[in-house]
């Protein structure tokens, strides 16, 4: 069975169609892997073993369906995406036990494509954080070193993928929440263009920044899943009508020859650790060797990106999280004396510290007297950041950048200093402000044996080009192997 887990999603899908492997065998292999590793990893908030096996068995009885690209492929889903028949909590106490009456659009697309959903991944509460330490339920451990964080907020998804608990997972990325955990756990993840994937059914954090994307163990696997979940959905007005190409087509022939790759000067300054710098230098050298041309570009407003991002994200969060009031769903305080009490105590008991900080600050920057100085100002700087990113991209095929200034750090290291953690998002959050796509994938292992990732940032709806260049990098780089668990 264990050789099933060594397969790529693409080759497993092929083997399932040819009936060389049954859907029940594939699901069983992943579920057994979960059973063996979950006590150490804590990547899952909910596992539907019986449901998944029953579904797989029923599918086997009917036989493979050629028009379903993910027929029988076992996947997991970040708990921020509502999923019928399973709890959906966004790792918050305030949604403990919540059962959605509908599937998020991306989840619905997975099911329609024949995927078998095994369960829901741990995350930072409401996607606010970069370690999973803000989960109200558990901290996920990095499969490469159990004492370290897996990154976040989609840390459970990255961990599950890297540890072979599934063949792909859906994450969401508001300021780096797919790319940073992918980088920390040594897997591949893409934050698609804003509007590429419907946000319908994604428990909202920062609505002008949030985007759902796939995480997997190879570029091709990621491309296969994005082809399934992307596309127009009338239930999200920001979801684009742009046609969806077959992202996995032609990846085997893709090359870096003649590509122009920009390296943003500001992303390689002070604050970038030696280990990450060395890994990215290796990627740049590989690109040159493969015939790409590397050019330096400048993004002068990079310094302002973190402040801009957090003001926008917290403002939108304070508004989005107003819906959790203890009335229609979620936690309600015991014996409130009046309605006001019901709201304020239910929210106090239901939200964790990081969520409260962001609600308070978001309320502050939107409040009378501060709106112009913070929220409007941030929206103005946002335009400058977007314009300069698009300008830099006009002259190149993509930008090559680090994902995080450092590799995964020890659990607990920064948990008392929220601002310190915000500063780690410097290279990831500008892409969300601009709505652009970015593919994160492994560069190398650092001196401590921890994965270091890099990202390729593209023009809007340029995912196909990013997958092509990513696939070429994947072939040319030595690879990092798998964590030993």
């Amino acid at each position, binding site marked *: 069975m264990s050789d099933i887990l060594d397969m790529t999603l693409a080759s497993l899908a092929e083997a399932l169609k040819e009936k060389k492997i049954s859907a029940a065998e594939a699901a069983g292999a992943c579920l057994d892997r979960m059973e063996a590793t979950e006590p150490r990893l804590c990547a899952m908030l909910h596992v539907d073993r019986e449901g998944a096996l029953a579904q797989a068995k029923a599918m086997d009885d009917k036989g493979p369906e050629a028009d379903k690209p993910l027929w029988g492929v076992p996947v997991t889903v970040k708990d921020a995406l509502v999923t019928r028949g399973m709890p959906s909590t966004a790792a918050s106490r305030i949604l403990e036990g919540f059962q959605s009456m509908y599937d998020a659009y991306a989840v619905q697309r997975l099911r329609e494509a024949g995927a078998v959903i095994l369960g829901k991944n741990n995350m930072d509460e409401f996607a606010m954080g970069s370690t999973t330490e803000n989960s109200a339920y558990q901290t996920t451990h990095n499969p490469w070193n159990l004492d370290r964080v897996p990154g976040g907020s989609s840390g459970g998804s990255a961990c599950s993928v890297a540890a072979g608990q599934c063949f792909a997972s859906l994450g969401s990325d508001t300021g780096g929440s797919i790319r940073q955990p992918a980088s920390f756990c040594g897997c591949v993840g893409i934050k698609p263009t*804003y509007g590429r994937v419907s946000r319908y059914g994604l428990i909202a954090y920062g609505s002008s920044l949030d985007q759902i994307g796939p995480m997997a163990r190879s570029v091709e696997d990621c491309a296969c899943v994005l082809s399934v979940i992307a596309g127009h959905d009338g239930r999200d007005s*920001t979801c684009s009508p742009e046609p969806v190409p077959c992202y996995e087509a032609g990846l085997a022939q893709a090359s870096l020859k003649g590509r122009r790759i920009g390296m943003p000067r500001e992303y390689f300054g002070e604050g970038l650790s030696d280990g990450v710098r060395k890994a990215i230098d290796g990627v740049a050298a590989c690109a040159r060797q493969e015939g790409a041309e590397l050019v330096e570009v400048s993004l002068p407003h990079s310094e302002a990106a973190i*402040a801009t991002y957090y003001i926008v994200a917290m403002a939108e969060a304070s508004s989005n999280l107003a819906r959790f009031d203890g009335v229609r769903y979620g936690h309600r305080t015991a014996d409130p004396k009046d309605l006001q009490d019901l709201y304020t105590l239910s929210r106090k008991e239901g939200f964790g510290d990081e969520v409260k900080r962001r609600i308070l600050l978001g309320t502050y920057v939107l409040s009378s007297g501060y709106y112009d100085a913070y929220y409007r100002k941030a929206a103005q700087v946002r335009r400058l950041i977007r314009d300069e990113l698009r300008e830099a991209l006009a002259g190149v095929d993509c930008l090559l950048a680090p994902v995080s200034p450092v590799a995964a750090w020890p659990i607990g290291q920064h948990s008392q200093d929220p601002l310190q953690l915000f500063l780690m998002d410097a290279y990831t959050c500008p892409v969300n402000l601009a709505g652009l796509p970015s593919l994160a994938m492994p560069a190398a292992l650092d001196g401590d044996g921890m994965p270091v990732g890099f990202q390729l940032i593209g023009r809007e709806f340029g995912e196909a080009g990013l997958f092509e260049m990513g696939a070429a990098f994947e072939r040319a780089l030595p690879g990092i192997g798998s964590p030993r668990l």
Partner: protein
Amino acid sequence: MASTKTVTREDVLHMAQLSRLTVDDDEIARFTGQLSDILSYMDILGKVDTSAVEPLYSPVFHAPTMREDVAENKRERADMLRNAPDGNDEYFIVPRIV
């Protein structure tokens, strides 16, 4: 980090009141320092000249698509009430307000 913005106990209480959030003394003690640090860091935006810049509130790349303003009524009442902390067959129930 030295804070240039000082968030006071009263500020936290005011924000909490606007946010419909009860904060206890421990939280106030923790949050005043942390929120001061974070807001001080935001001062960095003051260095950027935005005098002629239109705010960008959404990066969406297409004109929003609209549908006809017709109620769909796709959900069943019972389904919508299923997650309610308190309710009956027809309504969500909250403490008496009048």
